[in-house]
């Protein structure tokens, strides 16, 4: 499998062509979070419906490349119905996957974290790929540092939505 096939795996192309959980949710009761990739101008909007400690529903809108769109779709499918701590754990695991191999340089890996940390993180956060299920298909992205922001865009937006929710409570 060459790098490109590794990047554009069948499962990714499938989620890109047939995005899951696409659409919007009425706010309120849902929460809306918006993420923006300044490098390309793409945008993802995440709608979250949280009841108690559970993310009962999620929808995705916005537009972007195949990586960002499929990542959002895979994410939505993976987190829907999970408890908030589970979702948080998944976010952490996913982002750790996106910064392993040390290919991600400093702030490239994730604009939201001080790079020093991000870099140190690459060695120390154990990535449990099994726990990621279909999401593991996105690991080919780390070989393409410029595209890591594509893959993490929806996840950062989700995290931001959860933060806002938590702060509002």
């Amino acid at each position, binding site marked *: 499998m*060459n*790098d490109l096939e590794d990047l*554009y795996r069948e499962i990714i192309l499938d989620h890109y062509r047939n995005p899951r959980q696409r659409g919007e949710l009425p706010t309120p009761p849902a929460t809306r979070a918006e993420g923006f990739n300044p490098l*390309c101008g*793409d945008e993802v909007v995440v709608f979250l419906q949280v009841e108690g400690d559970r993310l009962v529903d999620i929808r995705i809108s916005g537009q972007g*490349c*195949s990586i960002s769109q499929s990542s959002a779709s895979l994410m939505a499918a993976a987190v829907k119905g999970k408890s908030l701590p589970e979702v948080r754990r998944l976010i952490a695991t996913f982002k750790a996957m996106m910064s392993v191999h040390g290919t991600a340089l400093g702030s490239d890996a994730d604009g939201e974290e001080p790079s020093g940390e991000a870099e140190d993180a690459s060695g120390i956060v154990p990535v449990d790929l099994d726990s990621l299920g279909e999401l593991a298909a996105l690991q080919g992205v780390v070989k393409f540092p410029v*595209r890591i922001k594509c893959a993490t865009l929806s996840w950062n937006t989700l995290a931001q939505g959860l933060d806002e929710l938590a702060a509002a409570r």
Partner: protein
Amino acid sequence: MAELTARSDPRAAELDVAAIKRDFPVLAERFRGRRLVYLDSAASAQHPLPVLRAQEHYYEHAHANVHRGVYALAERADQLYERARLTVGRFIGAPDPAREVVFTKNATEGLNLVAQAWGRRHLRPGDVVVVTELEHHANLVPWLMLAEERQLELRWLEIDEGFRLDLSRLTEVLRGARVLAISAMSNVLGTMPPVAELAEAAHRAGALVVVDGAQLVPHQPVDVGSLGADFLAFSGHKMCGPTGIGVLWGRAELLAATPPFLGGGGMIKDVRRDGFVPDDPPQRFEAGTPPIAEAVGLAAAIEYLQGIGLDRIAAHEHHLTAYALERLQQRFGRDLVIHGPREPEARGAVLSLAYRDVHPHDLAQVLDQAGVCVRAGHHCAKPLMRRLGVAATARASFYLYNDEDDVEALADALASAGSLFG
């Protein structure tokens, strides 16, 4: 203008691209087992051996700080640096090269120098600056910044359906304007506005003409006089020169009426505890140690380009653009949209592509796998992208070292993107 002659020049076919390619070490690189098909010269060009050698020679045999060192090494550095200024000035037909050529760090700094140093001194609240929808952020953000600081009015020359500047309201737009800031060639569409004609209208209206030559100067014979420019900015790295250097040319009397931009060593006549006396142009605008090795490299790049002939380069690119427009349309028909003027004679060698609904970044990624380098993104021209109704395009651009095989490689790679995302 020179490009018209160049375009009908039968010598176009003479450009020995195979030999030229050998001058560029990186083009012999293999990426993932494939030869490099470099189609991103509009972002930055590659460097021929004479440029690399000139810089190396400088560092190994002639480096010292400039500003009139007495010893032989410093004299060499001084001479090389000032000679580079003359080479650059003559290259663009500057009437007084020694005084009118300012070395900057890139085209962007040159345009900021005009907006901030000339503009702050000479523009008043309510003054009108005309920009065009074709502008790169480099000739836009400095004016937006100044407009905010000084309450200037920004007026826009828009593009028409044919991706050319709409000149129907020109007189109106220019009325009372103090500045026309205009790109001589769009880095997104390849559009080349009739700068000379616009400059004449601007001058009649009493406006200065600030030309962003970042895309034009590397690709065509340019003469500041016939262009009608009052200021002209461009970058070394887009014309086979080093990074870290740009040029601002300005008419001598305008530079003389421009206060300093950066303060520091080398730009003063005297400094006292209570003030300073700025030096004359161009030194006035070159605070601190200038990009000396880079100036030497840029001069070598200019000599390299002149050795081949700017008219021949322009003709070659024109030929290649026409070839690519035809081949790509032939092969992909409606699957491929190429933003920009249809007519090859109205545009530079820049093709902004939209292939079906494949996202430009995905397209560029797939092309890269075939060794084909194109740039995806907004190309630092967001207002123009909004006007085109897209967030990004994939842009292929040609230079003297590209040939028809490169166009074919682009086409083949596009086809494989089609089957991947099909």
